[in-house]
């Protein structure tokens, strides 16, 4: 075989391989999207080709999700929890990351890895005592329970990410500002934070998407339908008795997951990069 034919074959094989993986990865979402717009009579007829719109597409499932279920409420709840978690995370993370990156030297780097390890503690290890903590604080069945608890996931991760980011910024500008009469905190506020905006945006996006994805704590602390977030409301409360309403279910799962996925996609490179290239695991 000529080397040109081999090259061509290799390229074709590569495209086919990537194609198979793309189908595997994206199929459940494509399937949600197709199901969301199909009429029930089409959906539940085993004779019909499920890939085809055998009957005209319909918006009835979307309408149903918004008018007959609490989907809209769950979306609002998810956004409220996300914003709350972002605020708490920033308040705790920015000072801690600054301290770790600029004031504690070699120990700061070690301490930030220790804090990162806390991120590896999973909700499923702590959800039972945590539910007692939530009850003791009187927060069960409220969005506050999630705003108080989710930072246990976001703070360790974001402190580590942000301290790594700050360590990568040059010290000279702050030092120059301090020589010019700025105090340390002044230099932090006027010089370092403006430079750290990309890192802070990453922290905001991470905190928001991790809150929107979380399932275990939300399932454990919130049983009232009106207080649920999307990730729990859709799988738990869109079922009437034993009857799954697949149309509305797929419509709402699709609508809720794609924006969260797109948002997370924006920061995934930074997350991966921080422990393969520049961060603690470089």
């Amino acid at each position, binding site marked *: 075989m000529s080397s040109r034919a081999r090259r061509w074959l290799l390229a074709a094989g590569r495209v086919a391989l990537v194609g198979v993986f793309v189908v595997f990865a994206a199929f459940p979402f494509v399937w949600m999207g197709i199901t969301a717009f199909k009429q029930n009579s089409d959906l539940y007829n085993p004779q019909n080709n*499920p890939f085809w719109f055998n009957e005209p597409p319909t918006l009835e499932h979307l309408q149903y999700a918004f008018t007959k279920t609490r989907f809209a409420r769950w979306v609002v709840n998810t956004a409220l929890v996300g914003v709350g978690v972002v605020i708490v995370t920033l308040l705790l993370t920015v*000072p801690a990351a600054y301290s770790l990156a600029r004031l504690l030297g070699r120990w700061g780097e070690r301490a930030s890895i220790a804090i990162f390890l806390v991120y*590896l503690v999973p909700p499923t290890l702590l959800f039972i005592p945590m539910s007692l*903590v939530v009850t003791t604080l009187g927060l069960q069945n409220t969005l506050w329970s999630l705003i108080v608890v989710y930072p246990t996931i976001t703070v360790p991760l974001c402190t580590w990410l942000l301290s790594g980011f700050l360590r990568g910024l040059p010290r000279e500008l702050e030092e120059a500002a301090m020589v010019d009469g700025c105090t340390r905190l002044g230099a932090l506020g006027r010089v370092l934070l403006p430079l750290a905006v990309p890192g802070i945006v990453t922290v905001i996006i991470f905190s928001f998407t991790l809150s929107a994805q979380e399932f275990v704590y939300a399932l454990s602390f919130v049983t009232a339908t009106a207080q649920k977030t999307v990730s729990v409301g859709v799988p738990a409360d869109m079922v009437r008795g034993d009857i799954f309403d697949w149309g509305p279910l797929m419509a709402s799962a699709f609508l809720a997951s794609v924006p969260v996925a797109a948002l997370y996609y924006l920061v995934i490179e930074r997350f991966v990069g921080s422990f393969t290239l520049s961060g603690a695991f470089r």
Partner: protein
Amino acid sequence: MAVAQGIGAALSRGRTWLERDRVLAPTLLLPAVTYIVLLVGFPFLFALYLSWTDATTGNPFGRFIGLANFALVFQDPVASRALRNTFVFTLTAQVLVMVLSNVLALALRRPFRGRGAVMFLLLLPWVAPVSLSTIGWLWILHARFSVLDWALRGLGLLPPGANMFWLGRPDLAFGAVVAVHVWRMLPFATVVLLAGHSAIPQDFLDQAEVDGANLWQKYRHVMLPLLAPVAVVALLFGTIFTFTDMTVVYVLTRGGPFDTTQVLASLAFFKGIVGGNLSVGATISLLLFPVLLVAAVFVLRAARRAEVAW
């Protein structure tokens, strides 16, 4: 006036005091550390306490009963099954993820047109909320309207009108849970490996080519040794996420049929949160801890190695 001046002086003295590194460093770190101690450290100790008592939702402090919960859990066939499943699911899924992600990263390492869009589609399983995407799988694996069954019938592999009952048979339900775990972790391992690929100097590969190495030889002798450290990181994360996950099992099978796909995390949820048996639930959760501890030690070693290399 004098009072105001006094306060002003005290304030500025206070500020300079605060500005000292030895004061400022801990002050800034304190809120985050306090929060973590209160909401991670304390609940963890409380879980240890619960596992030694007979606490229930009705009596959350319970009585001290020694190691009776652990004895109970190890005698319980469902809990033993869950313990075994947790290991088998994690091991099977991670082996598949490591093999597939290495293949996929190899195919994606060089730039091509539309790479951004392809990466977004490939990453969907990792970046979408897992409880919602697993609902998509639930519909794909539906007992009567499964699209896979329809395809199998079309190919003549399944008689007309027949169904596989993917989630109704223990062996198939087992496969389904593993498949969804692989589906979810594969993108993550792949992007980590791709980051590793991008750090391999092109000269090494060019030199290997000049020396007449084929693709496999280049992979085995040039790429693999350089990828190993990041592959370990991907493996550790994948192991921790799969080992401690309850969402996939909860949404897909609820641990069924007949508790055959139950894992420690889901069983702890059913006993502790649904059943209100806090002590037994906490005990089952704590069985996750030894593996987490080992994984954490390896993560630390990976971090330390990187520190030395720097």
